């Protein structure tokens, strides 16, 4: 089951459901959700569902209380998160700040951990438009797997979360070294 | 007492009973056997023997029973009678 817990917010009808980013659908306000959660949203029991970078904000309809609906919402949410691809989300205008936040969360989380387990590190340098620039260090520098880690996982995760064609590039991205890396990876493949 | 250690199974998916492991071996818990009495199964869960949890077999008593296991940061002993109720798979990536 997907780990999650709820904490209170300033609004008594709204709870912040903390879920690991890897399980979350794209960021934004939810139009449609699968299963029972969708049912609750459509019927107005849930007034609003907003997916953020590390949690889902759920606001109940007027007159509804978490005391009544808590267990129900939890079960429905857990169910719905099993298929994040089925959610229909109004993507937010993706500004640099949001992209940077999502990227740094991923680098602080699973992607960074993966790099660290191999003795290296990946750090965020900057974000421009749809491009995220990172710096690789330690054992990752020169490692042939860097491509699959960076471009493969990081890129696809970012694209999934943001819903835009995000690209990832490394800081020391001079043409000869890029070509050299591509040759090396071809040989080693 | 020397006992034949069970060899790691050829397919990593084969489950064996926790009771079959020897001290020094490690495994990941799959669950409890279906015919375990519910209170016993519930108690084992509560003590930390949950699916996808890592378990270390630490040592066995000189007389053969019980055995000390480390699970969820705690060292617990179980008799063979209870260890037979827990299904595990060997850790393949350790």
């Amino acid at each position: 089951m997907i780990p999650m817990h709820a904490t209170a917010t300033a609004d008594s009808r709204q709870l912040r459901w903390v879920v690991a980013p890897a399980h979350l659908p794209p960021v934004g306000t939810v139009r449609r959700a699968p299963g029972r959660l969708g049912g609750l949203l459509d019927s107005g029991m849930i007034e609003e569902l907003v997916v953020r970078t590390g949690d889902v904000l759920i606001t109940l309809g007027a007159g509804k209380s978490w005391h009544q609906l808590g267990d129900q919402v939890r079960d429905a949410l857990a169910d719905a998160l099993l298929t994040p691809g089925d959610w229909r989300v109004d993507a937010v205008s993706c500004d640099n700040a949001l992209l940077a936040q999502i990227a740094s969360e991923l680098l602080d989380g699973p992607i960074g951990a993966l790099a660290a387990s191999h003795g290296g590190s990946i750090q965020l340098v900057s974000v421009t438009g749809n491009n995220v620039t990172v710096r690789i260090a330690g054992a990752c520098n020169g490692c042939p797997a860097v491509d699959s880690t960076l471009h493969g996982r990081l890129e696809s995760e970012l694209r999934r979360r943001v819903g835009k064609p995000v690209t990832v590039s490394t800081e020391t991205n001079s043409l000869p070294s890029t070509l050299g890396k591509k040759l090396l990876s071809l040989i080693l493949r | 007492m020397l006992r034949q250690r069970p060899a790691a199974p050829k397919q990593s998916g084969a489950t064996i009973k926790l009771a079959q492991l020897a001290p020094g071996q490690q495994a990941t818990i799959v669950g409890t056997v279906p015919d375990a009495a519910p209170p016993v199964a519930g108690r084992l869960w509560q003590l930390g023997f949950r699916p996808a949890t890592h378990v270390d077999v630490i040592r066995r008593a000189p007389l053969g029973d019980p055995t000390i296991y480390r699970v969820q940061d705690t060292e617990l002993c179980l008799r063979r009678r209870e260890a037979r109720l827990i299904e595990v798979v060997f850790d393949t990536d350790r």
Partner: protein
Amino acid sequence: MTSCHDSGGGPVAVASTRRIALVGSPNAGKTSVFNHLTGLRAKTGNYPGVTVGRSVGTVKVDGVTIAVEDLPGTYSLDAISPDEQVVTDLLAGAFDHIEPPGAIVLVADATTLRRSILLVAQVIRLGLPCLLALTMGDELTVRGGRVDVDALSAALGIPVTAVVAHRGSGIDDLRAQLGTFDRWQRPPILPPSDPEAADAWGKSVLDAADYAAPRPDQRTNRIDQVVLHPVWGVGVFFAVMFAFFQIVFTVAAPLQDLVGQGLTWIGGRVTGHSGNSILGGLIGDGIIGGVGTVLQFVPQIMLLFLLIALLENVGYMARAAFLMDRVMARTGLEGRAFVAMLSSFACAVPGIMATRTLPSSRDRIATVLSAPLMTCSARLPVYTLLIGLLVAPQTRWWGFSAQGITMFLLYLGGGTAALISAWLFKSTILRSDLLPFTMELPPYRFPYPKAVLVAMWGAAKMFLRKAGTIILATSLVLWTLLNLPPRGAETAHLSPTDATAYVMDRSYAADVGKAIEPVFEPLGFDWRTDIALVGSLSAREVFVSTLGQVAAATDPADPREALMTMTDDHGRRVFAAPTVVALLLYFMFALQCMSTVAVMRRETNSWRWPALAFGYMFVLAWVMAFAARSIAIGLGA
């Protein structure tokens, strides 16, 4: 192990207004927190209708008195033992006359939080105001773990306080919060009840709290490599057992002698200075003689309890239970019953109280019924006296002291009898309910002097109270019965010694003794022995002081010689070998201790079990004494 022989008579009354309960797993440091909060002034008793002990104390916060109840340790609100059932029932309000508490303080060990977070979920789900007291935070850090207490509090939705129970830091903070439990933060929704969902919830919460699990405790690992080693471990175990017996016989001896000498001196001054000879006799022989025998054993008892408390606090007792489990399982019991039996070598009372650690109520009762057969310290003066009558001090058998060998055999006999008795009970009327045997082995922790001394003082208090009340009362009554009616006129012409003997032979005690003589006649006991037996129903030590009085009446200078040569009405030697052997076996098996009966009653919450224990042990004692006597006579002793 807290104070035994408590006046745990009536129910524990608790003010109806503000009540807080402490809930947590065993080994979480809950009792430490309780002691810090209530300052050791807790009242103990039993929960109604069950054999589970209850501890309630009070704490004063901002002028308001709040009752704090230390609930039994539990791993889950889905109970599998009577102790755990009490926690579940009390929190659900299922007890007729006990309201659920107003708030709960959850005590959890920070180093095992990944496991106990499920209990936290269950307790929060009850809907009462909760506060989490997190213990062993220092140990968590030392072992490479970490937790953000504030983030944990935000994720759980309840207040969280870090407490280092042994040192008492964080306790003031905790105490201050107890006054305002109505205003404690409550979670917006309750954690899930489904075990898998609760597990997922727990993982999420700990992740949000930046929880890093500690590494396994290296020091414990290294120590256990030796202590639980198939060869070295068994060696350590026997060394510990040996230490026990060394204390009983050797270490305490000089202290015992000191006490004995002191008492003799006092006794001498009193009888010497007392103008009124009856009063002098009363105080000198009755009180000081009777109580003195018990006081002589206080050093030994305290040292034994010190050792037991040390072993428990360090964490060795769990290892001993682990090593002995297979043996105990043969009798139908389990490893923890061994610890209870071991404590009974000092005194059955703390041994019986130690059965609280056994989850199975049938295991508990079987151990309670069998533990008194273990050779307790009170039997020692009796054995010493009787062995002295049987075997001359210098005798050697195969190079060893004959007296020593006999004593060893008696100890062995007691231990074996206890195990056989437990096995019999567990095979018949107390057959197992097949509870899973699971036992936590906590890391070795440095025994905090305060905790150890508290345990030791509790035991000493118990012993002094036994001396001060039961034995004092019995000694007074016995002395009175033995020395009245005074028959001043008839004895006027006799020497003081002869006069005392004359009075004693015709005293009220003699009447009673002669009346019950038929019961013990086949065992060879005369009326004086019978009186001593009746007197020692209260406590075994009284046997020695009573016989001492009787012997001193005949020959104050050499009581042993008096007993050796004492003859009954038919001219036969009273303490001939077969009779002494019969007496030894009688004392091995008989339940001659009111304190034990009282604590049995308290721990099993009924008179049925103490009555059964007394009955079966009396029959067993009589039969074994008769058998031994017959064998001794047959062998031509």
